[in-house]
């Protein structure tokens, strides 16, 4: 079930990204690609059923719906001819969610007590109970979202099997949460000049702690390797924003002026929406799309494609190497077009995005070599008993 053709017309061994140099003594490094044989129609059928049940159950069926979609996607993806298997259960996600709700309720109770005994009717308290609660959730929510992200990944991997062997994830989600919070905070303080450090140091625990049975993955990336490219992107991005702002200013201002539209007329357009308003909004949206689409987003996709290539080519699982030659254009399709599809279809296009993403993975991920199956054993632990409560709470779980 694998594509064992040579990628990009290169001979086997000359991998994109230059990860390895072929040596006669090396083990088998035959390239192959994953195969995704899911169909858009079937994925839609599962998704629409999920939406129908979501409305009937007021959203409580989402845990089971999510599980069904994962089962479909996982089992239609195969590497080296072996399909993935997803064995998570909806009730595990429900328990995770309820557990997170209990934690939040306990936190709310704690904040309520703090309000009653410390702040209530005190002259210095120029804020309400909701303010305290909102602020505290904001403070703990940021790191907790990262903790939830890592724990969610651990849950998903623990319910994933390949060749009958459970995957897993080592490491502490809390440690990851602390590191991620610190790095993002530091990055914001330094005007995002630390982005390569953040990207590499947050990818490392996620990749290096991933396990297929007893086989750990490894990551050999270093932020220093990608700094030059990032600085190029960073300053080009600033120039592009300035150019985009100037272009928008003159385009919008010039258009309004040439149409003889006063500010009052302009406001009236929106207060009494008509076909003219709709056309106006579409024209503005199109202009903005062109300006930002031509200047800003390609730059971002250029950087993201580079980062993706770097992260993939610096990861391995035992003697199995990975590579990708994902291009700026493909990254555009992944980041921008997928986003627009979800947005313009009001979410109904989501299965299409999922399908496109799986096809992209199958198309662009190259696997070199095959693992020594005999040396990979079933792990003794079964992973967490429930999952993704925090992810669900912070609405970042998706599929």
């Amino acid at each position, binding site marked *: 079930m694998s594509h064992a053709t040579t990628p990009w017309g290169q001979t086997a061994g000359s991998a994109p990204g230059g990860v390895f140099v072929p040596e006669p003594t090396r083990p088998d490094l035959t390239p192959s690609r994953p195969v995704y044989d899911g169909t858009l129609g079937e994925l839609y059928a599962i998704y629409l059923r999920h939406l129908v049940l979501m409305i009937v159950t007021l959203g409580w069926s989402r845990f089971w719906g999510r599980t069904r979609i994962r089962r479909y996607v996982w089992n239609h993806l195969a590497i080296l001819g072996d399909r993935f298997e997803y064995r998570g259960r909806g009730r595990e996600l429900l328990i995770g969610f309820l557990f997170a709700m209990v934690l939040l309720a306990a936190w709310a109770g704690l904040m309520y007590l703090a309000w009653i005994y410390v702040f209530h009717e005190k002259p210095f308290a120029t804020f309400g109970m909701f303010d305290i609660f909102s602020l505290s959730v904001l403070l703990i929510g940021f790191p907790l979202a990262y903790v939830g992200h890592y724990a969610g990944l651990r849950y998903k991997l623990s319910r994933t099997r390949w*060749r009958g*062997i459970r995957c897993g994830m080592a490491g502490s989600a809390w440690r990851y949460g602390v590191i991620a919070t610190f790095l993002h905070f530091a990055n914001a303080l330094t005007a995002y000049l630390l982005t390569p450090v953040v990207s590499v140091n947050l990818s490392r625990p996620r990749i290096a702690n991933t396990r297929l049975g007893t*086989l750990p993955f490894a990551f050999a990336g270093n932020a220093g390797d990608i700094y030059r490219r990032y600085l190029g992107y960073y300053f080009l991005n600033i120039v592009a924003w300035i150019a985009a702002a100037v272009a928008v200013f003159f385009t919008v201002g010039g258009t309004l002026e040439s149409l003889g539209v006063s500010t009052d007329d302009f406001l009236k357009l929106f207060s009494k929406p008509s076909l003219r308003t709709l056309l106006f909004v579409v024209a503005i949206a199109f202009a903005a799309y062109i300006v930002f689409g031509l200047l800003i987003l390609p730059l971002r996709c250029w950087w993201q494609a580079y980062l993706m290539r770097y992260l993939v080519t610096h990861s391995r699982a035992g003697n199995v190497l990975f590579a990708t030659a994902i291009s700026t254009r493909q990254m555009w399709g992944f980041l921008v077009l997928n986003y627009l599809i979800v947005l313009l279809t009001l979410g109904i296009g989501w299965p299409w995005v999922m399908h496109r993403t799986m096809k992209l993975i199958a198309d662009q991920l190259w696997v070199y070599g095959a693992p020594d*199956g005999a040396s990979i054993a079933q792990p003794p632990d079964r992973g967490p008993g429930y999952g993704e409560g925090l992810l669900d709470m912070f609405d970042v779980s998706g599929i």
Partner: protein
Amino acid sequence: MAAASRFYDGITAQVHEVGVRATTGELIIFRPADSGIVARWPIDELVVLGDGNHEAAPPVMRRDGEARLVIEDIELRQRLAALVPELAALDHRPAPLVPRLATLGVTLMALVGLFWLTVDYGTEYAAPWLPYSLQAKLGETVFEELVADKDQCHGAQGLEAINRLANELAQAAGYEHEVTVHIVEGGPVNAFTLPGGILVFYSDLIDQAKDRSQVAGVLAHEIGHVVHHHPIKGIARQYGIDLLMKLVSGGYSDLLNTLSSGGNILLALRNGRAFEREADATGVGMLEKLGLRADGIAGFFEQMMEKEPKDAAAAAGIWSSHPPTQERIDATKRPTTGKPAFSDADWKALRDVCK
């Protein structure tokens, strides 16, 4: 996609290309090359993981085991399913896709419509049935939150006067619960209603009112919101539509949620304008029913128009939470006849409520 069956022993990640044969009591998994037995699984312990709707090739396992048998060959799956009832799930063929998608699509649209109607019209009838204690608790909590950093006015006679009139008006409209009016010092020139019959007036409104009938008019308007349960209806509709948007969009996109929220705000504003019209009409009706001067609402709006000739509500159109002011003046215009809503002493006390 290889047609052969694959066996994973569940101990290591080795792959065994195997053949499969079913006997009366066992499923025999063997190596095709030398017919060597790889595994013998009792029929009554066989389990199919998943189904043909979700899994491309549902794995077969022995109950409580880790080993897996994956049969890629559809014909072999069908033969085994026909022979072994425990493996019937292997022959699960999904219904034709197009009719399935059409049925699901139509069902989804019907449910969205039904949900929308339930939220939009159902709240009209359901809101009064929400336990009053719950409404009052909600109102009190929001009130505490809103006035946490503001000073309230405590003039006893003024508060008593406005609360007395508020409750008379509410009773005239058949409202069974007590209404409480709070006065917050300062501006803006505004008043609003919270669930549980809680009214909040800003003292600037009382200070800048030309006469007592204007304050009584605004009070009657707010009582109109109370007796129609507008705060609870507004919350229920907003929450209901928000939930619907989230359910239908799958909640997978932040930007989509933002757009949904934008649409939801427009709906809330549309509801707001309908509520304002209803409260205006009810307020005037209550004042007339008690034989009080009912020109205060229109008078108050006229004063607002004098201060700000440009009708902000009319200019804002669909973005306004209130109907155009001129429209409200026309709808609430009444003669200057009727008893004064406050006695001279009460009116003076109300004007001095924050002193």
